[in-house]
């Protein structure tokens, strides 16, 4: 890392830091500049409850969420030889916030210390939202690799906040396209009590409307054996509704939902959080180079790659690609040949980016909300059944924009 490189990525108002930079530039010998590197930062929170294994009754671990970090590591490893072509070394700075640390402050401090301007944020939703708002006017590239919430791409959007994980709208649109394609047009929604359940049920209802599916009924369920509320905890009673083709299950907790398939009153498939699931990635995906990425990941991390690790991997790939394809201005010196945050943002949101996402269609970022355009995989527990956009769903410019919020309907304003 050269002193100059560090200074180029400074936060604008940090006068004291500028002085430090100037001093460092004066002191450091010219030879240091030859070993150029480019640092990306992964920022998580220590003891994040989202990553505690969710223990079910009798000690079963049904969901064991892993951090996106391993995806970023695999992406970084892939950048090694790509950097060689440019005489550049990519580095990943892995940082965990302590309980007292504020995320936005940490971003500024790490940027000042390392010169980094690209951050992969693995933070709880409220913290991510707050950090993105606090840093909105500062020249960073922040990647959301963890949350599908549509409001982050809408009202809470920020010019520096990019999303490599698909939005809820994209994921639910993928599912709705598939159901429409199969002509399974009548849907019964079973919705749990968690906030996340309401969120995905709402997203699915919007997608159903968009693609012309009919919601036959929305039935709330409770995780309980209380005979007084049998209408809310008995699966046969809950699914005793006329005329549905499919059950859409909104159960982010999962303890109720895992018993729903094969227990419905009518013989109908279950989609949503059980059965057929729409996601950014699945470990059984076998086309478009995916087996190689899955094998690389498994070799490194010793578990199956999921959507959030894929999103972190994709964020690293996007930045590396932007740097490789950057054309320095005429007269650029070795110190100014790398793009600054502004140039990076411009490239990432341009149509020059053509990312290999291992899902077929090349990826790019929607300029109106910084969401990564991508294929969505529809998978069961051990197979990818379909890939959306489903054949026949067409868009005037890019079929990937049939998934999620299009420019005309975006609530994001920069």
């Amino acid at each position: 890392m050269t002193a100059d490189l560090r200074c180029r990525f400074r936060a604008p108002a940090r006068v004291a830091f500028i002085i430090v930079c100037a001093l460092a530039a004066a002191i450091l010998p010219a030879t240091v500049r030859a070993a150029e590197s480019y640092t990306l930062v992964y920022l998580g929170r220590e003891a994040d409850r989202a990553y505690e294994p969710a223990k079910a009754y009798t000690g079963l671990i049904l969901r064991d969420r892993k951090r996106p970090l391993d995806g970023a590591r695999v992406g970084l490893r892939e950048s090694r030889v790509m950097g060689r072509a440019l005489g550049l070394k990519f580095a990943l700075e892995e940082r965990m916030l302590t309980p007292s640390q504020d995320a936005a402050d940490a971003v500024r401090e790490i940027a000042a210390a390392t010169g980094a301007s690209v951050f992969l944020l693995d933070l709880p939703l409220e913290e991510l939202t707050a950090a993105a708002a606090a840093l909105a006017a500062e020249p960073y590239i922040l990647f959301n690799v963890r949350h599908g919430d549509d409001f982050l791409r809408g009202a809470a959007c920020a010019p520096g906040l990019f999303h490599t994980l698909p939005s809820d709208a994209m994921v639910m649109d993928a599912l709705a396209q598939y159901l429409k394609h199969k002509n399974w047009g009548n849907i019964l929604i079973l919705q749990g009590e968690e906030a996340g359940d309401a969120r995905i049920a709402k997203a699915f209802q919007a997608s159903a409307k968009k693609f012309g599916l009919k919601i036959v009924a929305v039935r709330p369920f409770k995780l309980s054996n209380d005979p007084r509320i049998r209408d809310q905890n008995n699966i046969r009673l809950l699914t005793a509704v006329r005329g549905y083709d499919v059950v859409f299950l909104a159960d982010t907790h999962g303890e109720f939902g895992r018993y729903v398939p094969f227990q419905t009153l009518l013989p109908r498939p279950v989609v949503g959080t059980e059965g057929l699931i729409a996601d950014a990635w699945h470990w059984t995906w076998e086309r478009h180079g995916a087996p190689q990425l899955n094998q690389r990941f498994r070799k490194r991390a010793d578990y199956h790659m999921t959507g959030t690790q894929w999103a972190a991997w994709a964020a690293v790939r996007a930045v590396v690609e932007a740097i490789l394809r950057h054309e320095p201005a005429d007269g650029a010196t070795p110190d100014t040949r790398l793009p600054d945050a502004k140039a990076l943002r411009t490239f990432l949101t341009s149509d020059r980016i053509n990312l290999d996402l291992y899902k077929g269609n090349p990826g790019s970022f929607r300029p109106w909300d910084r969401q990564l355009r991508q294929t969505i995989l529809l998978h069961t527990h051990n197979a990818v059944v379909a890939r959306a956009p489903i054949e026949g769903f067409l868009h005037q410019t890019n079929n990937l924009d049939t998934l999620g919020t299009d420019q005309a309907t975006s609530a994001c304003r920069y």
Partner: protein
Amino acid sequence: MTGTHRRPEVASARLLLSFLMAGVLSLSAALPAGARGTGLIFVTNEKSNTISVLDSSDRVVATMETCARPRGIHFNSDRTQFFVGCADDSVVAVYDIATKALVRRYRDIEEPETFDLHPDGRHLYISNEEEAEASVLDLETGEIVAGYDTGEEPEGVLFTADGGLVFVASEAANIVHVIDTVAGEIIKDILVDTRPRRFALTPDEKQLWVSAELAGIVNIIDVASLELIDDIVFLPTGMRKEEVTPVDLLITRDGRRAYVALGRANHVAVVDVAARKVERYILVGKRAWGLALTADERRLYVANGLSDDLSIIDTERLQVLKSVPVGQVPYGILIDDR
């Protein structure tokens, strides 16, 4: 998975032989002048772990069981044997063409995908898909004698005729590595378009063509300067850019025409090499990848990975003559007709 094949195939091979003997007179008119070899066509089937064997009338006459996930397939120097790379077993298997018997297995070759044989006939340069490495296998000793760090997912490997340079494409890194085999060094990493897959050299070796799968184009590299000089864009009528994913490509011996398999576009492009212009798109099966020309260059064989068949093209009329079902996910094609 074993590399041995089943007894019934020995019988079928014998049957085939007698069929061929009987058919020699009637077939000889159709066979290209000066054709040697058995006329057999070998196709690796990536997902069924088999090699389909077709005779010169394009009938499947045998299915050889082989190692797991067979992909790259290549003749040895005197064309009496061929190599098959099996990624899931980390094996390069060698088969005798006359007997179709397994001759040898080179084990512990990390995930071999494709390879090319050095003109010395002794050194096989292999892309090790999972190891981000191109390794050099000494076929006599069975030892890996050299390795070169490539980007992730090295794929296409191609030598210049004198063996001085070998090109290796790294799919995931969007780089073509140029290895000087004498110095034993990577002399250049050329940044190309998204997902480079395979190579073809013009016969004068002045141009290296590289398919960039996810960019839907072929990059042309000037071999003398090792710089990108031009692109050829493929876009069959009614298709969108993202549906066009070129993989294998071939240039004819006279250097005038190239064939490019367009993957998900389900077409093969016919290109005028000098003009760098697409002359025709020929509709083939689903996800066309592997290509092979007969010795007389009158037939082009196309492996369609997602329809599990071969399309066979008449290169004069530029029409598909027929399609032949093979195993699951056919990948590489080898024609023993010279």
